[in-house]
């Protein structure tokens, strides 16, 4: 394969925000997760914890609690509003003022007919869930010396009461959290670090767990303590175990059937399987941490050597440095010029940026929020200038994904109801709407789009796992790639063969010939032989697919921990082959090497990858964001635990 020049980029200061709330929908097995910046993410737990959807945040929105009612997602927050989300268009559907001050919690009954919210003023308000709306039903007043009983409001599972309400005993410590169970068992957690179990009928203390001596303790929030036992067969509550997966405060916990899911100030989501629920060690029984979003935040202009970094509030455009030196493998080359930050573009309005795109020539830049799409003309040659395209077609209101054609003459926007808008550049440097491809089936949002280099094909994938291929010359749907059970996490169209390479959340890899409307022979061979177990056991999805224009056999793809160059001319590895074989190959002589080669050339030199792309000059761009750098920017935890519990 040979030597590669790698631009190792570490100046993308991507900073995820802290996780604030979580709700798990056991029916659809989707986890909704709210972050401090008001964004909501939906993870599909049946599909390898794939991050299916992201609803961008908004400055004024603050979410304290999330709640599923059937397939509908509600949130409530410190702005005092309840909101329902449109999961097809990835935006809030409506919001409603609750008139009770900041809302600390929202919960529904099991029938899904009522929502209860706990407000700052100490009241619990009930809302009726209607088909398209919710409606205020009644107020539950505080009862003196006794907490709100769940039987009063026919909540059968549990009711979280806000922290303003004191315990049944007067205590100097602050009760942070109280859980009320159906058998009148009350569980409280307080600032003295105790979790106490009370009998609700008699008001007696059943059991006290001293969890930690010094920490302000939030039993359903902090430090992964949970008695994962909302079962009451044995009448006693037993502290089962303590997890310590987070370096910072845990702010949200969810219990799913087989695992504890937690997230907090250290911004990553941890899925901790409960090992007693698994009979043997398997892929699902491993601890899983999700650090990075499963989509691209980096756009790369391959011709111009530019990088566009997407932050929620701004875009950064960088020009890569260069070096004319040559070196041995492992060398660091002297820089001819340093990378240069060309542009910092701040978004307008309250809504956060949800997607962005940079044309490969580097002349156009576009981004979208839920409320608007903006396109800019860029001059980056000598004098950097940026001009906003003032007139955009009205139909272009917002986009889930943006993408330029390779000749920069067209822009594609994934719009509502899974449709794709094609916007064409007219002579006067203005953009006009040329055609809309409506979705033939699903109405789920499109999360991936790619075009062919020859400008003929456009492929779009949506959260229903459908991939549609449109013919841009005939301006019609060309075909639908056979639906595979796992969501595609990355795809790309080969520049010469126009084969569509797709990688799915379950790590399966397919190659589909667009022209022939069938899987390629290589893909069939791969599926027949099966992917190597080591490949399948990786726990982060592939998020980017590119091709080597000089060598049509090579496909470049990457996940968080590695990048891989697949050489389709080489034999596929079977299960007995050593999969990560680069070290072995290095130690072999020139003559022995060919017999040990296989198609997957994996490089793990670079870690915590956000983007790997191949520039037109054959050099590789690797954008790293070391987790340590993220951790070091986090605020200090309230009190760090130094010793074992």
């Amino acid at each position: 394969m040979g030597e590669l020049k790698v631009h190792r980029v570490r100046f993308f200061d991507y900073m995820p925000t802290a996780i604030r709330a979580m709700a798990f929908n056991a029916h659809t097995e989707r986890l909704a997760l709210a972050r401090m910046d008001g964004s909501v993410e939906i993870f599909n737990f049946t599909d390898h914890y794939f991050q299916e959807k992201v609803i961008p945040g908004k400055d004024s929105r603050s979410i304290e609690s999330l709640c599923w009612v059937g397939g509908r997602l509600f949130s409530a927050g410190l702005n005092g509003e309840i909101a329902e989300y449109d999961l097809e268009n990835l935006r809030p559907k409506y919001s409603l003022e609750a008139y009770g001050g900041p809302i600390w919690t929202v919960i529904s009954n099991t029938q899904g007919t009522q929502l209860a919210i706990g407000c700052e003023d100490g009241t619990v308000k009930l809302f009726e869930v209607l088909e398209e709306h919710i409606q205020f039903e009644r107020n539950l007043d505080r009862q003196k010396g006794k907490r709100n009983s769940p039987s009063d409001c026919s909540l059968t599972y549990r009711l979280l009461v806000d922290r303003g309400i004191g315990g049944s005993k007067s205590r100097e410590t602050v009760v942070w959290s109280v859980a009320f169970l159906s058998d009148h068992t009350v569980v409280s957690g307080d600032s003295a670090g105790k979790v106490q179990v009370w009998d609700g009928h008699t008001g007696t203390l059943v059991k006290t767990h001293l969890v930690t001596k010094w920490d302000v303790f939030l039993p359903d929030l902090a430090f992964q303590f949970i008695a994962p036992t909302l079962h009451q067969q044995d009448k006693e509550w037993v502290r089962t175990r303590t997890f310590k997966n987070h370096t910072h405060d845990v702010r949200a916990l969810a219990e799913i059937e087989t695992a504890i899911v937690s997230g907090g100030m250290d911004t990553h989501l941890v899925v901790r399987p409960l090992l007693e629920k698994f009979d043997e060690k398997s892929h699902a029984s491993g601890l899983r941490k999700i650090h990075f979003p499963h989509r691209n935040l980096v756009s790369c202009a391959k011709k111009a050597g530019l990088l566009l970094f997407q932050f929620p509030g701004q875009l950064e455009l960088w020009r890569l440095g260069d070096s004319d030196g040559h070196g041995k493998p492992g060398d660091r080359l002297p820089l001819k010029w340093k990378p240069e930050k060309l542009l910092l573009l701040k978004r307008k309005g309250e809504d956060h940026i949800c997607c962005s795109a940079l044309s490969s020539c580097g002349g156009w830049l576009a981004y979208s929020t839920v409320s608007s799409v903006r396109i800019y003309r860029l001059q980056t040659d000598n004098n950097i200038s940026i001009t906003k395209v003032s007139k955009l077609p009205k139909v272009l209101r917002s986009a889930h994904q943006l993408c330029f054609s390779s000749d920069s003459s067209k822009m594609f926007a994934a719009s509502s109801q899974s449709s794709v808008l094609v916007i064409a550049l007219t002579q006067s440097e203005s953009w006009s709407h040329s055609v809309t491809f409506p979705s033939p089936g699903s109405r789920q949002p499109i999360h991936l789009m790619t075009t062919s280099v020859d400008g003929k094909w456009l492929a779009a994938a949506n959260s229903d796992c459908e991939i549609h291929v449109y013919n841009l010359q005939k301006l019609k749907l060309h075909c639908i790639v056979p639906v595979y059970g796992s969501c595609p996490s990355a795809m790309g169209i080969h520049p010469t063969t126009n084969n569509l390479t797709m990688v799915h959340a379950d790590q399966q890899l397919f190659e589909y010939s667009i022209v022939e409307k069938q899987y390629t022979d290589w893909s069939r061979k791969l599926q027949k032989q099966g992917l190597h177990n080591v490949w399948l056991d990786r726990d982060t999805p592939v998020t980017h697919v590119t091709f080597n224009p000089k060598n049509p056999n090579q496909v470049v793809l990457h996940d968080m921990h590695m990048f891989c160059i697949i050489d389709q001319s080489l034999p596929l590895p079977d299960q007995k082959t050593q999969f990560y074989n680069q070290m072995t190959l290095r130690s072999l002589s020139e003559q022995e090497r060919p017999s040990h080669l296989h198609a997957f050339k994996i490089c793990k030199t670079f870690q915590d990858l956000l983007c790997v792309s191949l520039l037109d000059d054959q050099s590789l761009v690797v954008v790293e964001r070391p987790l340590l750098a993220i951790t070091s920017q986090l605020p200090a935890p309230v009190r760090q635990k130094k010793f074992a519990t």
Partner: protein
Amino acid sequence: MAALYEGFTLCGLVPTQNASDSAIQGIELDGDSDHALVTDSTRSVTLYKVSDQKPLGSWTVKQGQLLTCPAVCNFQTKEYVVVSDNKVIRVWKDEDFNLDRAFKATVSADVWRVHSAPGGEPVVLFQRGAVRLLDSLLSAPQQPIEDVLSEEEVIRWSTNIVAEKQHFVLFTTEQKGEHFLYVQRLNPNTLQKYRLEREDSRSAPLSFSASLRDKHINLLYLYPNGCVYQSVVAARGYVGPEGVQALPRSLRLRLPVGEGELGAASAVALDEAHVAVVGMPHPSARTGKDFLCIWNTNFQTLQAGKEMAGRIHGQVGIRIWSYIFFASNFNQMTLYLYLALKIHFTPIYINDHSFISPQVWCYLGKLFVPHGKALSVIPYECQKSSLASALGKLRHAGIAVSKSSVAVPSWNTLLHGNQPQGPAKIVATRKSKLSRKSQSVQALTVDQVLKLIKTGPVDEVQREVEALVSRGDAQDLQLSVGQLACHLVARSQAETTFYTPGALAQLVRTQCLCHSVCPDLLLLALEHKDYFLCQLCLQLFPDIPEVVTCACLKTFISVPDGDVEMVSLEPDSVSFMEGLVVAGARGGQQNGFSPPLFEEDSCDAHHQPKPTQHQDKKNPTLQLEACPVGLHKAVLLNEVLQTPYSDNLLLPHLKDLNTQQVILFLQYLQFVYLKYSQDVYTQTPGLRSPTVTQVIDWVCLLLDAHFTVLVMAPDAKGLLSNLNSFVKSQVKLFSELGKIEGSLQGLHKMKLSKDISQYSIEVIELF
């Protein structure tokens, strides 16, 4: 260890025409210890105040005249003496401004040097070897001077030494490649001639230095091959037979010369173990630089080095004059060792000697080195080296801090209590008050108990003290426990029949007591053979003086085993010792593994493992023996081992032990060390036990204190050779650790180099 400190420049030097010549002919001490009399190579003498680097006076002879000998100070008359043009002796005082007007006398023969030392008259040494006291010479300057030396024999170096009113002039001569030492005693005059052993290379000594030590004159001389020899001449009494005797010598130090020979170097003895060397390259620096180094002759180690900028000046031909005088109290041997080493110019011998030796003088903890364009004064310090400090570990590591640290009361807690525990404490005192009320009416106050102690019967005192201690709370105790203990001890000392072991033990157990509060307690316990109390004190007192520790050690080690075995001791320490003893009894070796200690030398490691029997024969004493002392005795010794101490203070007291005690104790230490070095025995973490380091430290201390005795004692021979092997194994361990450290640092550097910046362009290779 020795150290060279930051030096300073006393004066600048004017380079002479001949670059190899020094601008300085000699440096002598004035009567004042801070004054230095510097004679330059031609015409002038300058008196400096060393600490201020300030000239106090300067005297010059007329042009055309030449000073041929460094000026000296006549300590008795406070006059200065110098010789010009070989024959003219000049004497002047501080007040004299002009040297030409000063007293002068022309003698009939060429003078080599005038020597002077405090406590003795100046002595004149003539070039032909005759010696005269200055006074008698000046009274008749033209008296005939006899020739002592034969033809072709020339003086190379001379010095004088005053010891116990005996005045010596030493000088060395060379004749046809042979070197001789003359020792001239004055009053009565005797002359002794010694022949120096020939060095193989037939080369001449580069420098001499003489010092007086233990009533013997030690002569130290350096050869170009880097060997420093020492010869000893008796300073008094015995006058050997007439004629030339051979002078026995011993090699003190072999300097790493590298290839070739030293061209020019000087060595001067600083004390019995340290030698300062100039003109020799630093072993680890590149050649071509001149260094001033201090070497330890006992350990053959370089202890300090300092690069001297510019050339170190030397002179053609060498004359090293050295003298020593002692402070008034000679018997104490207090260590005012003033050495002078001088090398100076003798025009006659230019052709004889082509080498150039650098100059160094040493006075009062300061080395004077002319180099470059300056005369530098470099203070130095030589500390006594001991095996203990050479091994690098002096104090016991911070073990067992938990117990003893509590014992020293903190004023903060005493006065204000612990803030966070405030409420709890109040509750506690209230409780204790309640309990006090509920107790019997007989409960006595501290004052009452103190009164009772003075007169009451043993039983009652014992009972009341225990009652008082058991009900009191910590704050009250802190103040009263000391009083109680002192009173109890005072009474016991007064009345031999009065002794309350239980009460004292309880007082010690409160941990409110320390040795300085009640210094007699531990000694009292020793006196009454109350070993349990001794153990408690050793465990709980943080401040036992070394003399008391030693007394305990002495008592413990000489007590018969039978006496101690009946005493009940602290169970934890006993069980530790039982475990230690049993570990060996079980057979010692696991899976046939023999600890590396048994290997005689590291080279054995390459061999196949030897059969055990062979080893047994070879080194029978190293086999695990039974514990040389009884169980309880061992427990008590362990307590001594764990007592904090400072080795400098402990060493003199250790010398009180007699040989048998030392050997027994060493045997015990060896036993413990062997147990520890076996893998079989794993230390229980909770138990209070001496660490390996403590054991080693004590071994070193004992060896330092009794080394000469042990070397002589036949029954200690095996022990010593075993200990030698311990040291070897320790040295080996540390050298291995050093290697590991090196490679770890290498790893560290590798990591550092991988520090990745924000952006880089790298080349990778995929296959």
